């Protein structure tokens, strides 16, 4: 992914300082700073209502921030919004396609609005429809498309103008797993062409899979920023889980490993041992058990994933509406909606 960064002449990415936005009493963005390097994928990760869409709306010239400054694709949002618009593409959460036009007409509409001449518009349309595997349905009305197809058409329309920076606001929300994978693939192809991508998502897997850098947004603030690995390293959560067949072995093991009560689960007959999951650490645990003459039925190693990071960073006790933090179950529900 980062190979593209070196290859392309850098169109500038995004630099934002102190962005604020409130609607009446409600503070949506409470002063956020962002730095997105050109040619990379940046993911803004956060639960519903964290302010992700507002951030995209501000950076894509749709609404004005109450305070703060930003340059997007090398131009100031405030002073030359139109120059920004000429360089960006936006694919929003709700597919922005014209349902009463066919896929091809939608594409040609974009070509016209980008002032491409007729032949060039046709050529670009045909090329993109083929690339997005929509050539077969080019003559069908967009309103008859499935969610995945609409989203693909949406992205294809965004690409007609050859943007150097693309905003993708929750590009896979509501898509089935297969369409999601297709979108991921398409997004990855874009960075290979040197396009900068600013992505918002509530799916940890998506950020982990696609993004070079991730910022976690919660209640209008950036609570963490870094690569997926950096974020994972920031929080403890890695452990070894041992499964026993009876309480006696559980007790013996627990004594030998000098674990406190919190590590035991008597109902499930499991022990949870904090560990980085490395081989020496595993061997040490197994050696201790063997020395005590206790044998475990099963052993699983759990390394921290972004779920842990996300929950640790956004799901603390001070939050009243902790239910809005999407766990894996929520995520699955979202996808079905």
């Amino acid at each position: 992914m980062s190979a593209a960064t070196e290859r392309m002449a850098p169109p500038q990415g995004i630099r934002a300082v102190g962005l604020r936005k409130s609607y009446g009493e409600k503070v949506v963005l409470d002063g956020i700073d962002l730095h997105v390097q050109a040619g990379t994928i940046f993911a803004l990760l956060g639960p519903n209502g964290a302010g992700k869409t507002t951030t995209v709306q501000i950076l894509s010239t749709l609404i004005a921030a109450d305070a703060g400054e930003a340059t997007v694709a090398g131009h100031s949002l405030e002073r030359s919004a139109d120059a920004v618009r000429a360089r960006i593409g936006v694919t929003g959460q709700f597919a922005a396609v014209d349902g009463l036009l066919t896929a091809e007409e939608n594409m040609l509409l974009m070509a016209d609005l980008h002032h491409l001449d007729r032949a060039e518009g046709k050529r670009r349309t045909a090329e993109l429809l083929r690339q997005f595997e929509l050539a077969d349905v080019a003559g069908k009305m967009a309103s008859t498309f499935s969610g995945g197809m609409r989203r693909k058409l949406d992205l294809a329309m965004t690409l007609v103008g050859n943007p150097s920076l693309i905003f993708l606001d929750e590009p896979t929300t509501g898509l089935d797993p297969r369409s999601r994978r297709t979108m991921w693939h398409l997004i990855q192809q874009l960075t290979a062409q040197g396009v900068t991508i600013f992505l918002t998502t509530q799916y940890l897997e998506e950020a982990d899979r696609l993004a070079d850098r991730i910022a976690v947004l919660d209640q209008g603030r950036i609570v963490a920023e870094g690569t997926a690995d950096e974020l994972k390293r920031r929080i403890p959560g890695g452990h070894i889980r041992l499964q026993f067949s009876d309480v006696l072995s559980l007790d013996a093991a627990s004594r030998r490993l000098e674990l406190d009560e919190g590590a035991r689960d008597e109902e499930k007959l499991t022990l949870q041992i904090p560990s980085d999951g490395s081989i020496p650490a595993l061997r040490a645990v197994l050696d201790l058990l063997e020395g005590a003459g206790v044998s475990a039925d099963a052993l699983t190693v759990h390394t921290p994933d972004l779920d842990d990071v996300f929950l640790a960073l956004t799901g603390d006790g001070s939050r009243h509406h902790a239910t809005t933090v999407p766990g894996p179950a929520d995520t699955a529900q979202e996808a079905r909606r």
Partner: protein
Amino acid sequence: MSTTYAMRDSMTMLRRNLKHARRYPSMTISIVAMPVLMLLLFVYVFGGALGAGIELPGGGSGGRGDYTNFVAPGILLMAATAGAVSTAVSVCTDMTEGIINRFRTMSISRSSVLTGHVVGNVIQTMISLALVIGVALLVGFRPNATVVEWLAALGILALLAFGLSWLSAAIGLGSSSVEAASNAPMPLTFLPFLGSAIVPPESMPVGLRWFAEYQPFTPMTDTLRGLLMGTEIGDSAWLALGWGVVLSVLGFLWARSAFHREAKI
């Protein structure tokens, strides 16, 4: 340069809206159906009684035929109004579709979106007016206008449609739902009734009569009637033109400011 782009973008948007109109003819049909039903109602149900009971400005014997000639220009005005206010629905539908946010983040002439809607709607309205005129001729409307007078009449109707389209574009932008957008401009379609479209205002009670004499539809009706039937126009023509320009300017400014207002979350 930016003017050429504004023109070009507006043409692109106009083509888009005309395509919509072709694919969704139900809107055009309902725009034509309402005035046609009104025309039939007033000619065949009320026409005999109204023709005999009212002193019509054109003189005449006061039968159904004379009343048809009296009421038809009013019905045309109603048709223009009904057509124009449907802009609110098409604009509001667009706003809820998400594609509008795409347009807003593109480097295009900002007003072209609305211009496309308004001009498209005026064209659609003129087409439905042609149909209504056709029906009126079938039921006995016998205008004595010259070609120039016809053109002037169509010009007045187009100006009214243009002004009201801008006005209803603004209403559509301010509406929270398509239903609201469809209902909000309804009162406008009733204004011709409270003017000189159906009966002369002289026959109304004082308060209503005062309103009827000063509201914009009355000079427009009178001008139209004068052009098509040869009744006296007087200063109605200037008033009609004035109102048309005022409506257009107000509607345009209102719509533009509504469009530039921040997107809601």
